């Protein structure tokens, strides 16, 4: 039985100090199973740091992070790895491995140091590769792929972990429009399967269209959080990004684009 009160990834009063600078100041938000939450904000607002602090890549100075009611500090690295999957920004691949081997690395938290991938692992690998449309290129060498193909493969790698929560740091960065849309569609599919998805993103139109909720960070603190309509107000966007936006509807969907700089001074 799931417990609706404790279910989810919860971040409370997260503060991070790096090199004497406050990168995050008492940031709180949560992520429920099956929803897509966008973490937005200008460059340097602390979005990526928030993800890294949740993942314990960056040391938090203060705050409590819990997964389904369990404090993350009480989980060992392997247990944490089974619950939180991560798609790093511009993820590197250092060896010319096949696509299938790369995706298979996602099963690492489930294996002991000697164990080879089993049939159940293979099935999961095949499933996530089909969802991300990578299966046909499973024998290709990852270093020969295009940027769009590569980002799908690395997304599949993170999905192969089979974690209940997926954290992605700008998964659409440096992709062409088609591949950006593909990645966001995959994120929605992942959430539809019950995974809580937290995405650091810059595209406000995607934030509006693909996210269930948004957290807007500025200067290391939460400026607004809630549904896209609540967060993406003209006032919030001017305060956070110093831009004015245009809005329009098409095919029953809302769109939004930065239009001009708020004030030239």
């Amino acid at each position: 039985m799931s417990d609706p009160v404790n279910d989810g990834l919860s971040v409370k009063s997260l503060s991070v100090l790096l090199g004497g600078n406050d990168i995050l100041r008492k940031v709180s938000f949560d992520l429920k199973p099956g929803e897509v939450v966008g973490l937005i904000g200008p460059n340097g607002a602390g979005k990526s740091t928030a993800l890294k602090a949740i993942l314990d890549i960056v040391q938090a100075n203060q705050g409590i992070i819990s997964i389904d009611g369990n404090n993350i500090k009480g989980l060992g690295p392997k247990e944490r790895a089974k619950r939180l999957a991560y798609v790093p920004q511009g993820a590197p691949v250092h060896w010319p491995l096949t696509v299938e081997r790369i995706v298979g690395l996602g099963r690492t938290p489930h294996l002991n140091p000697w164990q080879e991938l089993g049939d159940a692992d293979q099935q999961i690998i095949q499933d996530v590769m089909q969802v991300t449309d990578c299966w046909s290129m499973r024998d290709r060498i990852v270093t020969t792929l295009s940027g769009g193909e590569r980002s799908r493969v690395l997304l599949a790698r993170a999905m192969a972990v089979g974690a209940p929560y997926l954290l992605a740091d700008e998964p659409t960065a440096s992709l062409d429009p088609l591949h950006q849309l593909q990645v966001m569609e995959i994120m929605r599919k992942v959430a539809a399967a019950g995974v809580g998805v937290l995405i650091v993103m810059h595209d406000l139109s995607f934030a509006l269209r693909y996210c269930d909720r948004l957290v807007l960070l500025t200067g290391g603190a939460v400026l607004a959080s809630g549904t896209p309509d609540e967060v993406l107000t003209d006032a919030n966007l001017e305060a956070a990004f110093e831009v004015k936006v245009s809005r329009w509807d098409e095919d029953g969907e809302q769109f939004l684009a930065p239009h001009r700089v708020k004030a030239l001074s």
Partner: protein
Amino acid sequence: MMTGFYKHPWALNVGLLGLILVAALLSAKFGQVDLSTAQVIDGMFGPGDTAQSIIVRELRLPRIILAIMAGASLGYTGAALQGLLRNPLADPGVIGVSATASLGAVIAIYMGLTAIAPLALPITAMLGALVATIILMVLASRDASVLTLILAGIGISSLATAAMSLVMNFTPNAITVQEMVMWMLGSLENRTFDDLMLAGPFIVLGWLLMIGVGQGLNALSLGEEAASTLGVDLKNLRWRVILGTAFSVGATVSICGAVGFVGLVVPHIVRAFVGFEPRRILLPSALCGAAVMVFADILTRLPVGHGQLRLGVVMAIIGAPVFLLIVFKTRESMR
């Protein structure tokens, strides 16, 4: 490049084991006195008082075992370091223990310790390796990054090399300098079970530290951040690979000199058969390193060198062209 070995890596391991056995047999046969295969088997397993049993068991067997252990250490640590650093140019020498071990040996020769006791040189060399190992341990225990450890290794190497030059500089006679240079070129000549007993435990300790690092090295293919989110304890992994290398390679260099190229080239040879996955190349690299080392040691006994051909020279003369060949063949996938 990839062959059936990619699906069946054990087939390569079995083949390499066979190669080591063949090399060991050849190594037992050839030397100042050439023996037939029957004489080798008889000397090995027959009564222990014949001339051939002394040649096989006391002269050639320790040399074969040392060659296997040295080659396996260099091959395995080369593969593990390349995985840890995610850099195909890494070599066990990068962490600095080879240079400090050599410095220890050069000091032993300078002070004339070799005349006092035959084991004085390897013991001093191992003390040299220990100095570098302790510096690396202190750094690793303070959560230094891999880059810091390697930069420290380069610093240690440079300092040890400079100190070696200084010692040579102050050496009054040319014969002693020649002795130093010949030692550094590497050899397994006249090594005994005493050498094996001295270095063996440290080599094995290094191996034990590095058991089971393959999974972490595989995950590191995705970078340190992704690896840590896959549950890999990076600090522990760094500690084990660096210290495992320090112990096994430090002891290896103390016994057979600074033999280059095995640690760099062997993992590349193995990749041609089993692909680039870091875990898959570890064991075959150890086996291939062992086979290559035993063969190179046989070549040092060829009459062309009048018994003066050194192990490091043979290895580099063969290793460098092989390395170039691999570089040409893998240029497509190495972008």
